[in-house]
């Protein structure tokens, strides 16, 4: 009989202890919260040492970037890509090596080459890219390259490449509106001449 009452008392006290624990956790949620609101918050990037200094060699994943002002539209990267993830379309420029201000086209690359083509489309499908780095070698102007490594100073380092929508993973490097713009410029010049 005494065991019966002792059981009741014990279970009551243990139940109250449990309820106290959950209640304190509920009140201290601001401090004790362990969830990371991922796209808005990120964990700090861990500092790590793989034999190089962090600044000297970026070990975080790299991805392709194009400096579109330097691109001459030679299609070498498109041809060499083993998975055909690069799509380039070009349009002949009216005058070789001349800036077209309407579409922000730069006529001369940073290496001093006069551009013949206007690049109207330069898409890299990052869902297909296999990060083989083959496209960066044939580029005569060195305008397509991997971020990270020696280029890590040029671009903020992103190690996730995550997007809300899958179509956002197709990186469009050509300036928006180039395709319509160049045709408008050409037709205007045709009308003038």
């Amino acid at each position: 009989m005494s065991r019966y009452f002792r059981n009741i008392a014990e279970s009551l006290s243990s139940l109250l202890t449990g309820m106290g624990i959950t209640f304190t956790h509920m009140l201290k949620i601001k401090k004790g919260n362990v969830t990371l609101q991922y796209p808005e918050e990120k964990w700090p990037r861990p500092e790590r040492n793989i034999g190089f200094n962090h600044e000297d060699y970026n070990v975080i994943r790299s991805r392709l970037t194009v400096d579109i002002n330097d691109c001459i539209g030679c299609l070498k990267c498109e041809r060499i890509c083993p998975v055909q993830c690069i799509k380039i379309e070009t349009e002949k420029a009216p005058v070789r090596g001349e800036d077209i201000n309407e579409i922000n086209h730069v006529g001369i690359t940073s290496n001093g080459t006069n551009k013949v083509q206007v690049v109207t489309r330069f898409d890299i499908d990052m869902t297909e890219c296999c990060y083989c780095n083959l496209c960066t070698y044939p580029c005569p102007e060195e305008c397509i390259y991997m971020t990270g490594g020696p280029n890590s100073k040029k671009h903020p380092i992103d190690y996730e490449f995550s997007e809300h929508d899958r179509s956002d993973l197709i990186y469009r490097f050509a300036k928006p509106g180039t395709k319509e713009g160049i045709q408008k410029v050409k037709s205007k010049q045709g009308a003038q001449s």
Partner: protein
Amino acid sequence: MTVDWLYTTFSQLFSFIENTDLLFLMSAILPIGIIVSLMAANAIVMVYAEMKISAFMQDRVGPMGQGPGLHAGKFGILQPIADPIKLLLKEDTIPEVADKPLFILAPFIIFLGAIIGFLAVPFNENVIVVDLNIGIFYIMAVGSLAVIGLILAGWSSNNKWSLYGGMRSAAQIISYEIPAGLCVIVIIMLAGSLNMQDIIHYQSGGMLNWIIFSNPFSFVAFFVFFICIVAETNRGPFDISEAESELVGGFHTEYSGFRWSIFFLSEYANMLIVAFVAATGFLGGWQSPFQDFMTGPLWGTFWMLGKVFSLLFVMIWFRWTFPRLRVDQLMYICWKVFIPISLINIFGVGIWTILIG
């Protein structure tokens, strides 16, 4: 706002309508519509509260978002709206070997049991749909209607897990009706009436006049009653009839889409009813805790809903704190602990009223 009051108001307003049946129908359907919308609103609020409170108790943040669209609104406020939309769009499946008429009937019986309990629930001094003179008895009676629906759902699914769930819930609800009923007897002994409004009027005049604080036996009776009603709603640590880890989903394993959401809605509606009964019987209903401070119809509703939602919070708190009981433990608690305690309570309250008053 009784049905009678509505009827007289309607007959004065629409004196051109000769047909008295139509007037009666109008005055009967209006409260039902309000009750159904109350049930839906309650389910929405409770779903959100349950998600958030359970998350906070487990050091999570629960549903969060930055705005409508991809995310569920600021602090996930749109999540309880997204959930019903998802449930309504789901395919409604009926198993091939199920007993089809019973399978379709079961959710409606449970829903009916939930909805007709609200008829005798007082919201404040004037607002009660039907002021029955056996109000508390009526609510206890229709509250056990749910067991028919549960066992029907379990049986008609033609699935051993569902049947186990239905059987367990039947055993559980029938067992816990007894201590709950014995605790209600304590209320009736003190208030001297089965009418909900009379019970509340008995407790007027401040917090110390509430039945829970009127003597030590009724103080114990409140906690026994509260645990029993939590068990009767198949919730918290007593959810052995739908134990996810043992019985897949118990009696609602085979239900999907809208039928499943009816079960869900009824569960929350049942919680609301039993919380109303506990607040009415032990916590003074719509009476203010401080004698004449903040009284009146609007404050009455405020106090009533305040008490009810605090009790509902405690139910959620129970659910996310305690592990589920085993079947034999559940029966042990009911038959060997609660029933003796409530019998002693009845005896003690009787002696107390004779000797002390």
